[in-house]
C-alpha cells in the first residue's frame, strides 16, 4: 500500500498580471492566487492511485504565510493531510531552494514510497524542482510522465521525450513529474470543501528544519513582455470578411 506525497505550489494567476506599457513593470496588486496548473494533475494522480491501491496520500507545499490559503484548496482535491513548510522569507524561492527545503522536510518527517510533482510550476516553469528533489533524496525519477501504473514494488511510467514515448520501470521509492494529459483534475464540490476543513495540516517552520537554504540563482530584473498590435476587429458578414481579406492582401502576407 503506497504512501504517496504530492507537491504543489501556490502561485500568482498569470492571467491577472498587467504590464505598464512604458516601464514594462509588472502590476501585481490585484492578482489572485491558485494552485499551479500542473500540480492539479499531480494531486489528481496521487489521489487516483490512492483510491486504487489504498495507502495514504499527503500534499506538501513550501511558501510564505499567505500560501496558507492553498491548503484548504488542496485538501478539497482529495489528499488526507497537508504539510506546510512556512516562512516569511519564502516569497521568491528559486528552484534549488524549493527542492532543498522539500527534501529536508520530507527526509526528516514524512515516510513515502512515491512522490508526484507537476511538470513545472505555472509561474517560474523552471521544471527543476521534481528532478532536483529526486536527486537530493537519492531516489529514481522519471519526468514528463503521461501514464502511471503501480504494480507491487514497481512503478511503470510512460514518459514523453522529444523522440517519442519511453516506458520505464522505477523501483520504489521514486519520484515522477506528470504532464497535463495524464488525467483530468476533479473540481472540488461543496462536500469536499467542507470535508477539507476537518483534515489535518502540519506546519513546519525553518527553525524545525535546522538548516539555511541559500539561493543559487539571483534575479537581476523582471520586465513584462508587451505585444503592440493593430487590434482591428471585423464582423462576420460578407462585406466585413472581404475587408479583412483586403487588409491581408495589403500587408502582402497572402498570395
Amino acid at each position, binding site marked *: 500500500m503506497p504512501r504517496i506525497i504530492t507537491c504543489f505550489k501556490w502561485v500568482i494567476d498569470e492571467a491577472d498580471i498587467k504590464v505598464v506599457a512604458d516601464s514594462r513593470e509588472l502590476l501585481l496588486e490585484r492578482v489572485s492566487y491558485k494552485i499551479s496548473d500542473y500540480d492539479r494533475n499531480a494531486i489528481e494522480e496521487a489521489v487516483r492511485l490512492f483510491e486504487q491501491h489504498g495507502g495514504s496520500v499527503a500534499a506538501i507545499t513550501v511558501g510564505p504565510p499567505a500560501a496558507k490559503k492553498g491548503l484548504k484548496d488542496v485538501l478539497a482535491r482529495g489528499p488526507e493531510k497537508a504539510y506546510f513548510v512556512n516562512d516569511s522569507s519564502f516569497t521568491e524561492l528559486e528552484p534549488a531552494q524549493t527542492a532543498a527545503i522539500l527534501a529536508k522536510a520530507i527526509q526528516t518527517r514524512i515516510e513515502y514510497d512515491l512522490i508526484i510533482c507537476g511538470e513545472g510550476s505555472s509561474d517560474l516553469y523552471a521544471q527543476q524542482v521534481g528532478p532536483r528533489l529526486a536527486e537530493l533524496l537519492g531516489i529514481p525519477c522519471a519526468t514528463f510522465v503521461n501514464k502511471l501504473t503501480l504494480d507491487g514494488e514497481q512503478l511503470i511510467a510512460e514518459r514523453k521525450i522529444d523522440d517519442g514515448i519511453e516506458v520505464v520501470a522505477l523501483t520504489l521509492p521514486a519520484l515522477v513529474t506528470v504532464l497535463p494529459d495524464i488525467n483530468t483534475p476533479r473540481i472540488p464540490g461543496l462536500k469536499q470543501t467542507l470535508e477539507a476543513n476537518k483534515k489535518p495540516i502540519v506546519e513546519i517552520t525553518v527553525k524545525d528544519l535546522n538548516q539555511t537554504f541559500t539561493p543559487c*540563482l539571483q534575479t537581476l530584473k523582471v520586465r513584462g513582455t508587451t505585444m503592440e498590435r493593430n487590434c482591428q476587429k471585423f464582423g462576420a458578414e460578407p462585406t466585413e470578411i472581404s475587408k479583412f481579406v483586403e487588409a491581408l492582401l495589403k500587408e502582402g502576407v497572402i498570395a
Partner: protein
Amino acid sequence: MAGVWILADRREQTLELLNIGREIATRLGTRLVALVSADLNQAQEYILHGADEVLIMPPLADEQPLSAYVPVIAEEARQNDPDIFLVAGTSQGKEMAARIAARLNTGLGSDCIGLNFDETQQKLVMDRLIYGGAAVQTVVCLTCPQMATVPPRMFAPATPQNGRQGVVRELAPPPPSGVKILSRKPREHAAGDITEAKVLVCVGRGFENQADLKLAQELAETIGGVIACTRPLAEELHWLPERSYIGLSGEKVKPELYIGVGVSGQIQHTTGIRDAKVICAINRDENAPIFDTADYGIVGDLYDVLPKLTEECKKALGK
C-alpha cells in the same frame, strides 16, 4: 582545470551548443568540452566544430536511460570544475541538467531565451520567460558551474574548421540505475514543419470535432499555409501531432501570417507567436484575449466564418 561544457542528446543540438560554447570559451580564455553519447566518429566531427575535448559516454544497455549518466557526469564535473555548463533544453536534457545541478549544488537557468556573457563579472546573464510568457526574468548563477538549458534552434550550428585538434576521452560506464526502459515508441512526424511555414492556420479548442479541422485545412490550402494548434489539441485531445503546437512549452514560430481560429489567446500560447509579422484571430467571443494580441480579428462563429473566408480568399487570389 575549468572550461565550458556542453551536453546534448542529439547531433543538431550539439552543433548549436558548440557554436555558442566556443564563443563563450574563447571569451573566458578556457577550453570547450563536449559530452557525447557513444560514437567516436562524431567526436572528431565535434572537434572540427570547435570542441577542445570530447568526453564520450560509452554505449548504454537497451534498458538503460540516458539519465543513468547523471552520477558519472556530476562526478566528472566535480573533479574538473567547469565554469559554465550548457545543456540542450530537450525533455531529456532538462531532466539531466536539473539532476546534475542538484548533485553539484549549483544554480540552473531553465529554457534560456537569451544568453549573454558579461566579461567583467565573468557571469552568464540568462533571460527566461516566467508567468507563462507574461514577463522576462533575467538571472545569474551565484554558484559554480553556472548552468543553463538552451532551447533547440536558439543558435545556428557551428561551422567546421579544418585542422582543429582535440582530445577524446571515454567516461566510465554508468552505475546501475533505478530506472529501467521497458520499451520505446518513436514519435509520429508532423506533415509540415510549423517552424518553417510562412503562413500558419492555428486551430484551438473552439473546434468541436476533429473532423471539423478540415474547415481550417481548406483555408490553409487556399492561402498556402500549414496547420498548427494549441497545446490541448495536441496533448490532451491528440488531434494533431505534438510537434504541431505553438507556445511556451511548444514551438516558437515566426510566420509572415498567423491566423488563430477558436483560440482564446492565453499568454502561454501567444508567447510562441510574438515574432509573427501579422497576427489574425477568429473567435466568437469578442472579449477573447487573442484580440488584444491580434492585428486583425473577425468576431464570429468559426463554423460560419471559415467557409466564407476560404471562398473570399479564393476569389481574391484568383484560385
